[in-house]
């Protein structure tokens, strides 16, 4: 159809006529699209990453024996098989641990005076304790023929022991010695504990196959954590599964604040980026007065003239959006890497959404051309209006 051919020819000429102006429009649209794509992509990713950042606090769920009348710590235990029923959590995201607490006596090699202390047997996969425990002293080697243990800074001070020393542990009738591989720095949760491996603690206390509690560090949004607790409670009907309220509650609060802030920022930025791109585009559209006047003067119907300019705007939006959105997704990957150390996963849905949004903005910004429909060609050429 010659009509259509002419249409596209005019479009080509319009775009080719003033390279500088096309470049400016593309820059504005592309910048808007880049920010839109970057923020949309980052927003989804950052919220997910944030929940995994909470692993820094360690465990947020604890499984304990049901409350009984007996208050002695030894009397309250769970079977160790319960631990295996807890789903394994990806080591980089969290972890689970089984602990057995008991009160025993410790003595350094050179001393005769035993000191009562808490002995913790631990079996851990992933991270459930604090991630940044400072180590005060480390032994040069790990003993091959003796048990290894590590002690808190208060224990080391009270018993007068250092890393590399031997420590006697006694509980009821059983006794053993261990090699101190490390002394933890002050402020850790094991400040006043001696930590040994779980089988050693079980042998020491005579509680074979028993544990005091299970700790789980589960990454997720507040709702996901609640689901996890509910499903774990179903799997372990004889135990008491609870969120550690100090952390779950604070995590939920902080998560809601940060994700709210992120969403609000993204929404506002998108809205205003759209508006300022629109303002920039409108400025350009106004310039078309002469062209419209000329077309009308040589007999172009208003609708056809408008369609011409809207097509031009849509094309510019498409190109600007395609380039900008690609750049934006790359930017968001870089941002994700800078903040969380892991590049944000590009979400394919973001790309078409951004391109579509850009085209809409471009077309809507040409809206002022509508007013050009009722201008009179003669007054334009006279230089009025």
């Amino acid at each position, binding site marked *: 159809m010659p009509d259509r051919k002419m249409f596209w020819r005019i479009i080509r000429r319009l775009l080719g006529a003033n390279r500088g102006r096309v470049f400016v429009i593309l820059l504005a649209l592309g910048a808007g699209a880049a920010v839109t794509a970057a923020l949309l992509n980052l927003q989804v990713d950052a919220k997910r990453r944030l929940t995994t950042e909470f692993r820094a606090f360690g465990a947020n769920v604890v499984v304990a024996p049901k409350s009984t009348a007996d208050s002695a710590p030894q009397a309250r235990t769970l079977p160790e098989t319960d631990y295996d029923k807890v789903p394994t959590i990806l080591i980089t995201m969290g972890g689970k641990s089984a602990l057995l607490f008991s009160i025993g006596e410790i003595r350094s090699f050179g001393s005769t005076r035993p000191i009562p202390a808490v002995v913790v047997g631990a079996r851990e996969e992933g991270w459930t304790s604090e991630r940044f425990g400072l180590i005060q002293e480390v032994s040069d080697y790990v003993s091959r023929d003796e048990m290894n243990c590590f002690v808190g800074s*208060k224990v080391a001070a009270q018993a007068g022991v250092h890393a590399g020393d031997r420590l006697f542990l006694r509980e009821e009738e059983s006794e053993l010695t261990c090699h101190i591989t490390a002394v933890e720095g002050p402020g850790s949760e094991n400040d006043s504990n001696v930590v040994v491996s779980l089988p050693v603690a079980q042998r020491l206390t005579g509680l074979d196959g028993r544990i005091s509690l299970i700790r789980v560090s589960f990454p997720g949004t507040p709702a996901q954590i609640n689901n996890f607790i509910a499903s774990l409670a179903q799997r372990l009907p004889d135990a008491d599964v609870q969120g550690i*309220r100090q952390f779950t509650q604070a995590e939920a609060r902080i998560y809601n604040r940060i994700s709210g802030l*992120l969403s609000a920022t993204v929404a506002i930025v998108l809205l205003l980026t759209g508006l300022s791109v629109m303002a*920039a585009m409108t400025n350009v559209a106004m310039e078309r007065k002469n062209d419209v006047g000329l077309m009308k003067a040589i007999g172009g119907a208003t609708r056809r003239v408008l369609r011409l300019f809207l097509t031009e705007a849509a094309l510019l939006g498409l190109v600007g959006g395609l380039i900008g959105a690609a750049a934006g997704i790359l930017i968001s990957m870089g941002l994700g890497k800078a903040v969380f150390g892991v590049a944000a996963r590009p979400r394919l849905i973001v790309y078409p959404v951004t391109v579509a949004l850009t085209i809409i903005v471009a077309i809507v910004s040409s809206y002022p051309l509508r007013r050009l429909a009722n201008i009179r060609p003669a007054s334009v050429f006279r230089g009025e209006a």
Partner: protein
Amino acid sequence: MFLRLIADSFGRRAQRKLLTGAALALGMTVATAALSVSLDVGDRLGREFRSLGANLVVTPQADSLPLEIAGIDYRPANAGAYLPEADVHKIKTIFWHNNIMGFAPVLEVPVEAWSQASKTWLTPAVAGQAMLIGTWAEHSVPLADGGQFVTGVEKTNPWWHVDGKWFAENSEECVVGALFAQKNGIKPGDELHVSAGNHAYWKTLKVMGVLSSGGSEDEAVIAPLEISQELAQKQGQYRQMYVSALTKPEDNFGRRNPEGMTPAELERWSCTPYVSSIAYQIKQVLPGADVRVIRRIAEGEGAILVRVRLLFWLVTAATLLAAALAIGASSAASVIERRTEIALMKALGAGSGTVGFLLAAEQLLLAVVGGGLGYALGILLARVVGERIFGAAPHPSLLVFASILGLAAIITLLGSAIPLRRAARYEPAPILRGE
């Protein structure tokens, strides 16, 4: 003549100037809002993180080894050392006293508890074993400036929830843990008899509420500090104190040991609210006390704060970049469209310098007006966002105002510079002919 040209340009092309100005103002609104929120977000989130409760714990230096399992100390009541309650108020005299958000001393006593309500046909007069935790609920601490600071366990353990009321200070009232209440059939309003030291000391407490903490406190009785001091015969003493302080995330410098520092370094270290420097200062005002950072809280908080801050700075940077590009594009467009005018001026004998100067002055005027308007709108926007999310608006800052105006000026000038440079090379004749 110069001013007239500018005034004329604004008057003649009011609508276009309005549009360029609107683009500028909108861009700057985003920039202002993002900058203000980013500047504020660290402080606000620091406060939010206090919902984790205490990040410091004070214990006696000469203490025996605590036998603590799941939050309950199994030491006999007379073992270990204590700290004087009379010293506690000094904590609000340290350099960073404004950063101390709350503190509560604690003294635990194992007691036998018995209530009329738990008496049934099966259990006529059975006394239950429980831990009585003596602490502050809403205690007023006198300040050096004559004011009062109200603190208590609700500040250090904000996740505790009481159904009913907290006990009043200096009263014979108490709050019971949810599990304890359930096991013994106690409800608010009942009377609870507690005794310690083999029935040597008796107290009758009125139950005011039921505490649910999700921890070992659910099986305990919480009462005013004086009650536990009397029961344990440790008048005016406490065993542990939890402190909740607003801190700055620790960097490598913050983690250094203050003993190895030069005086200048020590001053810089103490004048930064690192959690360890606050601990150090508390230790200096509380003789005989050992102040420890609860690493799990402090380090986790620090790690997350650093990341979130970085995230918001980067989002702000992206926003600024977008605003800059949109504004730059709009000012470039406003120069391009005036080619004929520029050509005419040059044909009449104006040099490239004069033309550039004229256009730059126009753009700067727009930048100041648009930037100022954008700043005002942006502050409003930041207020709305701040109040919605944190319940408090960020303070308008002069720094933001100055940087917004500066930014607006630089961007518009940069945006117009490229087309202006090309305009300088224009030959007036072809343009005036319309080619």
